[in-house]
């Protein structure tokens, strides 16, 4: 047989057996490598970690959808999850690889979906106990982490699972903490090289927050960092000399952090001290609650910390996605980390040292209007007279987005007044211990998409929503900002001006979710979760 006749025979065999090259290519896919995640969104057919890449910028380099054509964007499919979260949202960010979306949902459902059609390959549903604690009040999940052929997902009963991405079957299942005393887990795991990094929910219960690193293959724990120190450790001097108070001091870690591979540092936010509103039995700053932590990835050792709200009395968790960028400040290239905080301030810190570079209000916050030279807020109002950010905050965990070309951070701001009435709680494991009552003036509040000049902290523009909004933001290099609102609109704005260019009514408030985007078959897709649906948008096929 000549080589040509061999090829003809091979083509004949392939055709007659129905084997097609793209299918072979998919079947030989070996999964996600650490390098793939490091490459971030430079390969636009992929979205492999919660924010798209390790910077937390949620900024896509894609430019197919532009301010000039976004008005033609149309929904191309809708996936109905069949599971909903009363009082919260469908908060996930899908991952995408080889035309397959990996999606987690409320109540610990999860799916692999055909990114072309939204049709499911498999569904996973965890059998949850009926005595969930925090997990019953917020039965949400924000997404998978992925490495190799494993998907990593946390659960409402405070476990970490590894699923086979091809089947959805459980490969391993380990307990993070005892859900019965108040723990749960809701975040999207952060996968770095040879570790799966997760945090914990439950700061409204008498719990103690931590950040964990696990072996992706075995599920063995590599390290744990407690966000409230033990007696005698660094930071314990900011608590009463009472081991019991520290052992239930809060500091939950329920939002995915960011990662600087060069510095080998993980950046992670921490939540409120417990009890939330009642602080008389926890005198002091209560480190490391309401802080951002820089943690060495290999060891879990704390490198530096910055506390946004010392001795918090308002449930202003600092569980935000830290946004990393390299910026020229006063002629010097600085590695910075940025946070628009629940306390109403925008912060920029040197991410090598933790030095505060910018700290300015991005809301009408009344509890403080400036940060002192010592890096601490100058507190004006303790909340008993009202009109601070409410407990949901000047913003919240919904992801912001950073456009490095414009050097603007786009954030969903909330302007809602509240009055705090603290009361001493009884501490019972498994029962919430808010420590008081809050009166929220829901009728008068509003929301807004705001653009912040990160070098000055000044507001560049805003687009107002009729009510306070909990939707996240995504930007693209074409100069677009995608955002959502409480009324159910999914919207596109011109990043430079804030001009609204397009909107689509999804039928349910967009709550806790931000858009993601990827390229499939040469066509840019944009996805947003809303209510019980995941909707994919694209330009019509006849568009250039």
């Amino acid at each position: 047989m000549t080589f040509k006749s061999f090829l003809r025979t091979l083509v004949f065999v392939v055709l007659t057996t129905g084997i097609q090259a793209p299918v072979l290519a998919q079947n030989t896919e070996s999964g996600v490598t650490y390098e793939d995640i490091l490459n971030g969104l430079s390969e636009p057919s992929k979205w492999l970690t919660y924010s798209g890449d390790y910077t937390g910028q949620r900024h896509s380099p894609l430019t197919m959808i532009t301010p000039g054509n976004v008005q033609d964007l149309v929904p191309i499919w809708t996936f109905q999850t069949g599971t909903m979260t009363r009082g919260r949202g469908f908060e996930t960010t899908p991952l995408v690889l080889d035309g397959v979306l990996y999606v987690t949902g409320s109540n610990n459902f999860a799916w692999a979906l055909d990114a072309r059609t939204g049709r499911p390959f498999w569904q996973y549903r965890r059998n949850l106990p009926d005595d969930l604690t925090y997990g019953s009040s917020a039965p949400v999940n924000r997404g998978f982490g992925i490495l190799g052929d494993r998907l990593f997902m946390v659960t409402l009963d405070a476990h970490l699972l590894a699923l086979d991405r091809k089947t959805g079957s459980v490969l391993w299942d380990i307990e993070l903490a005892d859900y019965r005393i108040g723990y749960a887990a809701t975040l999207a795991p952060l996968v770095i090289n040879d570790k799966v990094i997760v945090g914990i929910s439950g700061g409204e219960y008498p719990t103690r927050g931590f950040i964990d690193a696990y072996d992706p293959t075995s599920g063995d724990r590599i390290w744990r960092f407690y966000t409230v120190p033990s007696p005698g450790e660094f930071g314990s001097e900011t608590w009463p000399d009472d081991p019991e108070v520290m052992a239930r001091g809060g500091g939950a870690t329920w939002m995915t952090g960011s990662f600087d591979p060069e510095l080998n540092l993980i950046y992670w936010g921490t939540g409120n001290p417990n009890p939330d509103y009642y602080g008389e039995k926890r005198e002091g700053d209560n480190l490391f609650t309401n802080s951002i932590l820089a943690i060495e990835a290999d060891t879990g050792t704390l490198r530096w910390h910055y506390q946004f709200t010392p001795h918090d009395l308002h449930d202003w968790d600092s569980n935000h996605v830290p946004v990393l960028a390299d910026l020229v400040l006063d002629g010097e290239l600085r590695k910075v980390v940025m946070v628009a905080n629940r306390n109403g301030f925008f912060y920029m810190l040197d991410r090598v040292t933790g030095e505060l570079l910018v700290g300015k209000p991005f809301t009408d916050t009344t509890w403080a209007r400036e940060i002192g030279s010592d890096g601490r807020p100058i507190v004006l109002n303790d909340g008993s007279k009202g009109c601070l950010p409410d407990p949901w905050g000047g913003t919240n965990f919904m992801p912001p987005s950073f456009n490095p070309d414009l050097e603007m951070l786009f954030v969903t701001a909330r302007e809602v007044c509240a009055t705090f009435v603290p009361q001493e709680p009884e501490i019972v494991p498994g029962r919430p211990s808010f420590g008081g009552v809050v009166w929220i003036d829901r009728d008068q509040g509003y929301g807004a998409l705001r653009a912040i000049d990160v070098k000055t902290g000044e507001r560049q523009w805003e687009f107002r929503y009729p009510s306070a909004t909990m939707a996240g933001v995504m930007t693209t290099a074409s100069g677009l900002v995608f955002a959502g609102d409480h009324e159910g609109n999914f919207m596109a704005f011109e990043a430079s001006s804030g001009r609204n260019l397009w909107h689509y009514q999804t039928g349910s408030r967009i709550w806790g979710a931000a858009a993601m985007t990827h390229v499939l078959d040469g066509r840019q897709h944009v996805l947003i979760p809303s209510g019980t649906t995941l909707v994919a948008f694209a330009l019509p096929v006849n568009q250039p």
Partner: protein
Amino acid sequence: MVHMLLTCLLLALGILMPLSVSGQGGNPYDADPAARRAGAALFATRCAECHGADARGIGAPDLTLLWAAGTEDERVFRTIQRGVPGSNMPSSSAPDNEIWAIVAYLKGISTVSPFEDNVGDPEQGREIFLSMCARCHRVATQGGSLGPDLSRIARIRSRDRLLRSIREPSASVAVRYRAVTLITQDDRSIRGLIKSEDAFSIQIADTSERLQGYTKSELQEVIYEERSLMPDFGTERLSNTDLDNLLRYLGTLRG
């Protein structure tokens, strides 16, 4: 926290045992002062946002009138437990003893209806209602739907509150009765109630109760009004005698 406080109180009282009844057989904590304190704490965290810190109603009904209107403990219990379908009132999965504690608290602060020793003639009041109010307010099957349905108003609002709402309706306008005027591109003015709104559109019921939706970009102006659509009924429009008659009639409306 309040949950803890309640648990502590109930434990101290020795009444944290499961109850075999579910909304039947009367309130086991009726008139129990400790249970009422626990119920007050639970009410503050779970109910007061809609019903007001004093339970006299904000957007939701005045709960201090329930017993005066003849409502029984069991019905209040069941309403808390099951919620009110179609309203903002959710169901509750709280244990029976917590719900009974809230019922005991509410019963303790309930007031005798001031309507009972009211002055005025209810028949004349009904005539006034039909001539002056029924265009916008419904009683049973009669009347309009622009304003609140008054069929059960005596169960959920006190005489004093109703009096204020008639004399000065704009002093306090519930969110779902906020008024708006839309100016169209052809200079038409359309006044009505905001039924729904987002950043790009607004849905109203105009003063003829016609439901209409508009895209904001196609309007010249959206004017949000501070005042209620309901005019003030001062003494020049409604004498004190007529007001007494009207209130006496409204006091008979218990559904």
